[in-house]
């Protein structure tokens, strides 16, 4: 059981900064997902925690111990790799036994632990096989087993599900979550799939360009994205983001698009919009907060349906507001056709406003 603390961690390769002053605390027993697009520094961060690559600056503590200069083997961690990294020339049994052998456990103890892990993961019948004779899902279990036998303080997982097919991925996702609920071990989990992060993690750390963008519980990240990057990355389909201009009309504050449409903001949103560094702001709205009208009503803006995508439970419509496209979710029975002129209503309580210059979320002053 252990807490993991990163303080101002930096990693650069020459002039390229892969991890830029990242600080975060992973509580004891927490499941934390590091999430972001490829190249955002999440895997590098994980490798730094593992000690596989040297740090350029900062501190990492695991279980109250400064581990900066410790070898991976001395950090009391286990890791599951994206390609599983099973030793191809060893049987499953020997793969599971390897970490215990390295720690010089007695043979009977090794045997007992390997069999126990195999039983838990339901791979007992595979113990004599070689990794290449296993299916993807079975390899995944063995990789998990190899991490499990050691009973480490922290589990590190680097996109462990991304090599599985879609159906198996959903199944393993539930199993991993169940496994964490039973064991209550600290887990740091790297993924590019925000859905995995949202469904499994206690907290998610959204990274981009080497920076930690936001670190919070998934529902908070979803409800209050700190900037346009997080807003556009979390949620599926993503939040629609439209650059607009703030215009004052007497006491009222309006948003106006270069395409000509405009609508009035509520008083609270008006305050937010005026706190931006310039008159440029970015308007954000999730698909479920938008409504479609067939005729012009006060506060709506005109658009034209571009694509209609039925998914069964819900239908998504992409609507063109001039040059920008926004996504709206609709009841599957709602009659709508491509190229139809429609009117979109923004829910003033649920829209997001971001500073057009800094891209940061605007808060009421």
């Amino acid at each position, binding site marked *: 059981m252990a807490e993991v603390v990163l303080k101002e961690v930096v990693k650069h390769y020459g002039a390229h900064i892969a991890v830029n002053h990242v600080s975060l605390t992973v509580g004891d027993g927490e499941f934390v997902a590091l999430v972001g697009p490829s190249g955002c520094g999440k895997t590098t961060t994980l490798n730094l925690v593992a000690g596989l690559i040297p740090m350029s600056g900062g501190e990492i503590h695991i279980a109250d111990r400064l581990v900066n200069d410790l070898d991976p083997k001395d950090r009391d961690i286990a890791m599951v790799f994206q390609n599983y990294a099973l030793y191809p020339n060893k049987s499953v049994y020997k793969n599971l036994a390897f970490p215990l052998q390295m720690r010089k456990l007695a043979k009977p103890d090794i045997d007992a632990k390997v069999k126990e892990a195999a039983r838990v993961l339901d791979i007992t019948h595979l113990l004599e096989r070689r990794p290449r004779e296993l299916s993807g899902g079975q390899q995944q279990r063995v990789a998990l087993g*190899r991490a499990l036998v050691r009973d480490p303080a922290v589990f590190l997982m680097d996109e462990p599900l991304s090599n599985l097919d879609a159906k198996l991925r959903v199944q393993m996702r539930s199993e991993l979550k169940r496994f964490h609920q039973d064991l209550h071990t600290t887990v740091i989990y790297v993924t590019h799939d925000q859905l995995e992060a949202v469904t499994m993690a206690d907290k998610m750390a959204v990274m981009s360009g080497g920076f930690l963008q936001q670190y919070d519980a998934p529902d908070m990240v979803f409800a209050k994205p700190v900037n346009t990057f997080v807003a556009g990355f979390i949620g599926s389909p993503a939040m629609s983001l439209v650059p607009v201009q703030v215009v004052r009309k007497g006491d009222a504050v309006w948003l106006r698009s270069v395409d000509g449409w405009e609508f009035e903001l509520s008083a609270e949103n008006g305050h937010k919009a005026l706190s931006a560094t310039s008159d440029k702001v970015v308007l954000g709205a999730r698909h479920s907060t938008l409504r479609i009208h067939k005729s012009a009503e006060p506060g709506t803006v005109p658009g034209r349906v571009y694509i209609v995508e039925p998914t069964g439970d819900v239908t998504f419509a992409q609507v063109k507001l001039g040059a920008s496209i926004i996504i709206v979710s609709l009841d599957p029975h709602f009659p709508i056709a491509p190229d139809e002129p429609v009117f979109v209503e923004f829910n003033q309580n649920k829209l997001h406003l971001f500073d057009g210059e800094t891209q940061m979320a605007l808060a009421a002053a």
Partner: protein
Amino acid sequence: MTDATFSSRAITKRPIDWWRWSGRVFLVFLLLFTVLPMVWMVLTSIKTQFAAMQYPPQWWPAEPTLQNYARLLDPSNSVGQEFLRYFWNSFYVALTTTVIGVVVAVPAAYAFSRFRFPGRTFLFFSVLLRNMFPAVVFLMPLFLLMRWLGLVNTHGSLILTYLTFGLPLSIWLLKGFYDNIPIQLEQAARIDGATRFQAFILIVMPLSSPGIIATSIFSFIGAWNEYVYAYTFLSKQESMTLPVGIQRFFTEFATDWPGLMAATFLMSVPVVVLFLVLQKYFVRALTEGAVKN
């Protein structure tokens, strides 16, 4: 799978026969070009001296004889003694070169494949560039160097030279193999409690054995066939290797073509057998690195 093979067959079945046939004719021509000289070598080697020196030639030996081989392989006569000594010398030099070469090349290739240290690229290119230099350029300075080291007329001089000239290629080949071993395996091992060295010995080494075999074949065949340095460094008859020794044999028995053909045949046997048995590795080694997806 069956589907794919079926459809590809279906495609090739609709033939532009002209292409296929020209390919076949070409292959037959190449086969004759390659094989006929070897056939003639073997045919000559089972002729008597008298039968070989006739015009027009005996296309097929009238009285085939293994006498030429018997003489070369019989340790009780002086020719046999000499030939077997050359054979043993070649074998000793080639084997030693191969073993030491692998021991030195393995860590170097691993480092080139895995580490990013300053000057690594420069070192690597200097290693590679060695491939470009003609042996003759190095002959004289190396001869003087060997004389200074007191290694002239010893097998040590050849082993040292072959090692150096074999190393760039060996390192390059092995690096290709290490590049194909995922680094995550070592990372996993280090997290599992192994030191970097243990990860190398316990995980990487067993996986790179095909590469080591391939490199060994190359190095052995190269050393076995080498002529220029052996020709210059070795002047004493008892230390000569086969390619040099055979020349001596030829000048001593100036017109004994059947004997010479038997000797070249015997000289080729070890490398050809080695090649045929380990062909898969040999071909892979030959093309490794030059062909990338």
